């Protein structure tokens, strides 16, 4: 019977069901939490991945009791939900089946589950099944396709190397001259180190000074530009004051010349000029043969 109801339970609590994408949320149901005991730990019932939200519970059981006896049965989880059925005055042997809808409650909020009884009677064939939703990308690092995924940076390994210093080795016996030489060498090293630090400090100071002077120059240039702009504005306003405001009448200027006889005579001067050019051309051509 439970097998027939489970698909219904899944359908009730899930609007969609998909395993097609590894990062897509998917739904599922647990096994029977009450199969071995009437108390159970949720971490042993729900799946392990983070991002598990429980959104419903189906439970069933059959009480065994005498009709006249008082008997109450409570099913629930610590801190989340509980449901009590009062079988007092009712016969036993009748199964109860309930589907409890819940808002999505994170796995971490679920306390231990239990079936408790009060009165005379027993509970048999108990079944408690949870419906849940898994959101794999609850932890963005679950999959590179999850929003907010960050490429993990390998941890930095600090390596400490102990250099052997023969001058500190008590088993090494140095002569007086060698000891003096070592001390002078150490002094020289310290002196060089101090000089390097001073030089670095001096470079840093110069750098800061240059940056400050550059900022001063930039501000001075900006002020100069503003002053020039203001002078230009004043001069332009003085020029503008010499003009009067006038309105140019608009409108359409229509053609007034009318061609009376619908034809244009050739220009006589032009014809004469053209003829003179032709005559001159002919004379020039003739000169080639006459000479």
């Amino acid at each position, binding site marked *: 019977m439970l097998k027939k109801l489970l698909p219904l339970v899944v359908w009730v609590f899930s609007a969609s069901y998909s395993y097609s994408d590894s990062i897509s949320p998917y739904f599922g149901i647990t096994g029977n939490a009450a199969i071995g005991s009437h108390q159970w730990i949720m971490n042993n019932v729900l799946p392990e991945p983070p991002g598990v939200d429980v959104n419903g519970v189906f439970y069933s059981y059959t009480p065994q009791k005498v*009709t006249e006896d008082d008997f109450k049965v409570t099913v629930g989880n610590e801190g989340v939900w509980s449901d009590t*059925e009062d079988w007092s*005055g009712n016969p036993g042997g*009748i*199964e*109860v089946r309930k589907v409890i809808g819940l808002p999505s409650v994170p796995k971490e909020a679920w306390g231990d589950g239990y079936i408790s009884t009060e009165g005379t009677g027993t509970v048999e064939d108990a079944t408690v099944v949870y419906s849940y939703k898994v959101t794999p990308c609850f932890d963005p690092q679950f999959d590179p396709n999850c929003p907010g995924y960050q490429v993990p940076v390998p941890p930095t390994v600090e390596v400490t190397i102990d250099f052997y210093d023969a001058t500190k080795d008590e088993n090494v016996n140095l002569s007086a001259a060698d000891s003096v030489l070592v001390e002078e060498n150490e002094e020289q090293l310290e002196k060089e180190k101090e000089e390097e630090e001073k030089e670095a400090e001096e470079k840093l100071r110069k750098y800061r000074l240059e940056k400050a002077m550059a900022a001063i120059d930039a501000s001075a240039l900006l002020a100069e530009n503003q002053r020039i702009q203001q002078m230009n504005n004043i001069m332009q306003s003085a020029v503008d004051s010499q003009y009067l405001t006038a309105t140019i009448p608009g409108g359409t200027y229509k053609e007034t010349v009318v061609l009376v006889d619908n034809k244009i005579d050739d220009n006589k001067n032009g014809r004469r000029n053209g003829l003179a050019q032709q005559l001159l051309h002919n004379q020039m051509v003739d000169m080639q043969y006459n000479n």
Partner: protein
Amino acid sequence: MKGIIAFLAVSMTASYALADTGSAPITGNVQSRCIITTDTVGVYGNPNAYTLTTSASDGGVLPVIRFDVTLADAYYAQVTTPTEFTSSPSLSDTVSWTGTTEVKAVSDATNMGDYETNKTTFGSTTQYDLTATGSTWFKSTSVATYGGNKAFPGGAYSATVEAKCIAQ
């Protein structure tokens, strides 16, 4: 044996007319708030030549019918065990029938726990007063015995448990 889903729908239509003044039809629908579903189809076992029974110990399967009610104190559930075969080989002798119906499960024990106590039986029909909203599963037994302890003729037999939701 086949469980029957009996769905009771009530519809009403009223019309009203006055002479010389026209008419205005009014229509309405009443949707049933009692739904019957076959949860388990029954099977007859054949423990001996002259008996067919749904008893699990005799190889049968009890038919289970579910009533889903969304309105309390509004319906009676009536479950009738079979008194004849709906199909069978030709039978030359009479068949005696016995059957019972019981509550198998409820969705609200506090308010439905007394259904079994308060049921009434007349003939092969058992009636329950559905006083609470929720689901109730009813299981029925059916035993058919051929007359004079004769052997049932070979063939397929089927019968029907009828379930009705009757408005109070």
